[in-house]
């Protein structure tokens, strides 16, 4: 959906024309670009292929902090206003959560001073002085190596993806969803319901998925997982429900309910491995009840290499790639 030039264009469009010259060169490398970090009064930091660089005034990348271009509070406000089309009030709910998703599925993390409600909830944010532009990368085919192990007699197994943050479990989940939805050589395509609480899987912008999640996928965006799973179950009759980063109190209960209805579940959870999962209360329960039939543990072995270990429901290692 958003590849190559399109991705670069969608990132460049986040900046007003006065700043486009500065970021043009970096954005030309959109495929390798991970993050653009803007902090008021601080140098612009670019995360490219996992490495940290500073941006010079001419738009070049450098490792030297002395040569780095600093960005001011007013620049930051102008960029944020441009992203929101001078309608920040329209993004109040997103800003309260700390991020907003833009066209192309990129996520803009925002931080500043929180305005609190009396009940201890965040009402809004003011003095926004930190922006983190996280570039969306969909890797088509990321699930190719694990897909053969996710089916048993042409039936998709309930699968749990386990890894630490930033290793790629959402990317893997996204591609599993796409291939399950479209159909593959192991089974025909089936209806998938995605509850995308943090807009990371589909990267929805104005309700439309910016990432390719397949032709039989329905997305419930920005909805709490437990509530969303129940809604999808009732309204969209999915064969499989996919959720990212389970861990909340009601998630476990809902997963149990969904599987009892005969609907498959693909989920991700934070953790360093099976042992880590066994030590958590939720993990212990899920493993004990054998709700999941496959576990995929992702570990970063080298800066650009991720090891995937697949376990069956008896926790026996069945594949490593």
């Amino acid at each position, binding site marked *: 959906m958003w590849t190559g030039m399109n991705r670069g264009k969608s990132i460049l469009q986040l900046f007003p024309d006065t700043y486009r010259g500065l970021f043009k060169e970096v954005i030309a490398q959109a495929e390798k670009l991970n993050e653009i970090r803007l902090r008021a009064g601080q140098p612009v930091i670019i995360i490219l292929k996992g490495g940290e660089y500073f941006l010079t005034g001419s738009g070049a990348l450098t490792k030297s902090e002395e040569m780095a271009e600093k960005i001011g509070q007013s620049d930051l406000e102008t960029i944020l*206003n441009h992203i929101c089309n001078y309608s920040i*009030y329209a993004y*109040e709910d997103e800003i309260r959560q700390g991020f907003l998703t833009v066209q192309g599925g990129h996520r803009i993390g925002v931080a500043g001073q929180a305005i609190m409600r009396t009940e201890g909830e965040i009402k809004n944010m003011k003095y926004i002085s930190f922006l983190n532009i996280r570039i969306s990368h969909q890797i088509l085919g990321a699930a190719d190596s694990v897909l053969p192990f996710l089916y048993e007699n042409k039936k998709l197994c309930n699968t749990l993806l386990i890894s630490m943050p930033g290793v790629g479990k959402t990317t893997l989940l996204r591609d599993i969803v796409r291939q399950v939805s479209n159909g593959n050589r192991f089974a025909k395509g089936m209806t998938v319901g995605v509850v995308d609480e943090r807009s990371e899987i589909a990267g929805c912008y104005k309700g439309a998925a910016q990432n390719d999640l397949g032709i039989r996928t329905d997305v419930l965006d920005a909805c709490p997982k437990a509530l969303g799973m129940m809604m999808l179950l009732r309204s969209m009759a999915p064969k499989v429900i996919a959720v990212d980063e389970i861990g909340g109190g009601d998630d476990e209960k809902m997963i149990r309910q969904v599987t009892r209805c005969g609907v498959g579940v693909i989920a991700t959870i934070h953790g360093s491995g099976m042992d880590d999962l066994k030590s958590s209360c939720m993990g212990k329960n899920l493993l004990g009840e054998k709700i999941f039939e496959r576990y995929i543990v992702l570990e970063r072995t080298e800066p650009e290499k991720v090891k995937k270990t697949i376990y069956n429901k008896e926790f026996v290692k069945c594949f490593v790639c």
Partner: protein
Amino acid sequence: MLRLLAGIFILFGSIGFSFQLCQEMHKRLQHIEQMQEIFRLFQSEVSYSKAAFPEVCLAVSGRVMEPYKTVMKEIYEQVAAKSGAQFPEIWKEKMEECLRDMPVKEAERNIFLEFGNRIGFIDWETQAGMLEKSRVQLEELHIQLKSVIENKEKVITSVGILGGLMLVVILI
């Protein structure tokens, strides 16, 4: 005969001129009303649908008269093209162009063009408040102009007719 004809032309000319003046004042009043209506619609879109300004422009374009209808749509289209120009710049540029040949005066033109500098607030209440402020300014202008028209309309028409008659008497 020729003198009579010339006299009639002069008389009709001066009466026509006075009507034209009154008509322009009424048109100005209509424009101020339209501007007020635009801000009122903006305010309700911001308060109830929490839509962003470009979408608000598109929604409002269907409920206002020309030339605002077309301009609103053009503003939305230009923002959607994501050329890099910022919304306040686009608003100012398009509206300046739209109001150039319209019977509007500096006062209402400034309030309308200044709208671009009154946006970008984090919460919708403040944003809606700023829109209300602009609308109230236009409303005050509208009340002022209406009373001026009421007072001047008869004077202008009378001066037009009498001035015409006087010219006829002097020249013919």
